[in-house]
């Protein structure tokens, strides 16, 4: 079964395309915002037809099942999800990755899996995905910067991938590394972060059924700026844990380095679970602004995924933030 179709096998039906008039309506509120006075009503911003304007140059993906795991919350517009990215390898501005990530070559792509496991090796992206059924999962995504979105990812449970390499009992953690290639990522020359970007999970976190490996978004392969061709999606943790464009996975005995944690350990913990009661030293984490909305909403513990709480029972989450 070939699940990733590089050809455009499923052209968009005319019925799926949102008329431009409807699409542009979603931002008509901004006119009101311009006029808004101090007494502006707390009426929310209503993005209509979130599926509009998907990049049709990206290959479409078939999924075996779909799961809505964001409490029925409105899915964020594709345009917003794909034009508001933190991917410092392509620039530190939010719209830089959408502009610059075109230089990233996502095929062919392989991932090296090694460390504390019985069958380490290098595996092609196509082989990695093929034996499993792709599924769509709609997850909340909460950035440490206090903005958030709801995205329809396509991918496979992380645990399905990790099990194939037979981690041993010494495998207590899993480390992940992003591609580091200055030729494709000119912004890495500035050394804003310690490249390659790296992240890590405890093995039980990585094996949790919610931990997901995304290869697609909105029915198609990932746009480069969202971490193509393969990225982590850990919905109960701040977004920077969900590492993009992964080339190396390593099972380790010790807690691996994580880029932001290395840069400022007092600000970005290794765990970085979404927690409204533990503030970032420079800003509150109690509220967040959903992309497409004007006012802030309350942030939920574990980003609204209480089923992961048992992973941390007995831990002081103020200390292990």
């Amino acid at each position: 079964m070939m699940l990733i179709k590089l050809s455009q096998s499923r052209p968009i039906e005319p019925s799926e395309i949102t008329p431009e008039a409807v699409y542009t309506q979603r931002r008509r509120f901004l006119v009101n915002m311009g006029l808004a006075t101090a007494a502006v009503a707390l009426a929310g911003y209503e993005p209509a037809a979130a599926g509009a304007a998907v990049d049709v140059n990206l290959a479409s993906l078939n999924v075996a099942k779909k799961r809505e795991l964001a409490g029925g919350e409105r899915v964020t517009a594709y345009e917003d999800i794909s034009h508001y990215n933190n991917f410092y390898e392509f620039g530190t501005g939010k719209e830089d990755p959408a502009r610059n990530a075109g230089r990233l070559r996502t095929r062919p792509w392989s991932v090296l899996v090694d460390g504390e496991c019985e069958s380490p090796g290098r595996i092609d992206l196509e082989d990695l995905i093929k034996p499993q059924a792709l599924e769509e999962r709609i997850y909340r995504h909460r950035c440490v910067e206090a903005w958030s979105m709801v995205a329809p990812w396509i991918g496979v449970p992380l645990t399905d991938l990790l099990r194939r390499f037979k981690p041993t009992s010494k495998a207590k953690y899993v480390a992940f590394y992003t591609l580091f290639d200055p030729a494709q990522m000119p912004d890495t020359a500035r050394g804003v972060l310690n490249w390659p970007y790296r992240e890590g999970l405890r093995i039980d976190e990585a094996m949790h059924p919610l931990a997901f490996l995304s290869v697609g978004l909105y029915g198609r392969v990932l746009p480069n700026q969202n971490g193509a061709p393969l990225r982590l999606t850990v919905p109960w943790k701040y977004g920077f844990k969900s590492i993009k464009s992964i080339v190396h996975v390593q099972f380790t005995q010790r807690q691996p380095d994580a880029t932001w944690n290395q840069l400022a350990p007092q600000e970005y913990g290794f765990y970085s679970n979404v927690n409204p009661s533990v503030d970032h030293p420079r800003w509150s984490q109690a509220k967040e602004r959903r992309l497409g909305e004007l006012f802030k909403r309350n942030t939920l513990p574990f980003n609204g995924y209480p089923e992961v709480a048992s992973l941390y029972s007995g831990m002081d989450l103020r200390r292990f933030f």
Partner: protein
Amino acid sequence: MNRLLPWRVGAWALGIIPLAFAIKWTFQSRLGPNPVEFLEHYTGDWTLRLLLATLAMTPLRKLTRMTEPIRVRRILGLWAYAFLCLHFSIYLVFDLSFSVVQLGEDLVKRTYITLGFAAWLMLLPLAITSTNAWQRRLKRRWLTLHQLIYPAAILGAIHYLWLVKADTREPLIYLAILLALLAFRLPMPALLSRTGGSAGSSSRAS
């Protein structure tokens, strides 16, 4: 008189043009996925730029030996304050939903907000006393009072530097320009006599 006109037009343009773009983009829905953040950054950037422009007028006057820069300084300073008020208002409305409790919490807990708020407070009396009448009324004290722009600008630049996550390039550029402009005001008799300025004669409160 006619020599002043282009300077006045230029100073007004520095305020009106960025404001007009902000309004245009707002109405055209071109503020990106996070319009509140965009406007906060935009108004913050322009506050700092206009403060730097205000502080550049004294060095410009000394270098060019023209008096026009000093005569448009007030326009620039008031535009800087207008952008600062917009910046603060957007934060109050959209980040805090007018919550005084949350403002208090931010002021106590988050130093960059404390610094920014302090800068706004310092510049408030400057905006109020910017008129000719107040200038006459306060006489020499007016000059002393208006030296508050120095600490306010420093706080503003640090406010920016403090809030960025990792990429400090832009805030450091603002800070470097600010420090250069302030350093220009330090007494440097040897340098000034060579460039023709007279140390101390007109370097106050500018």
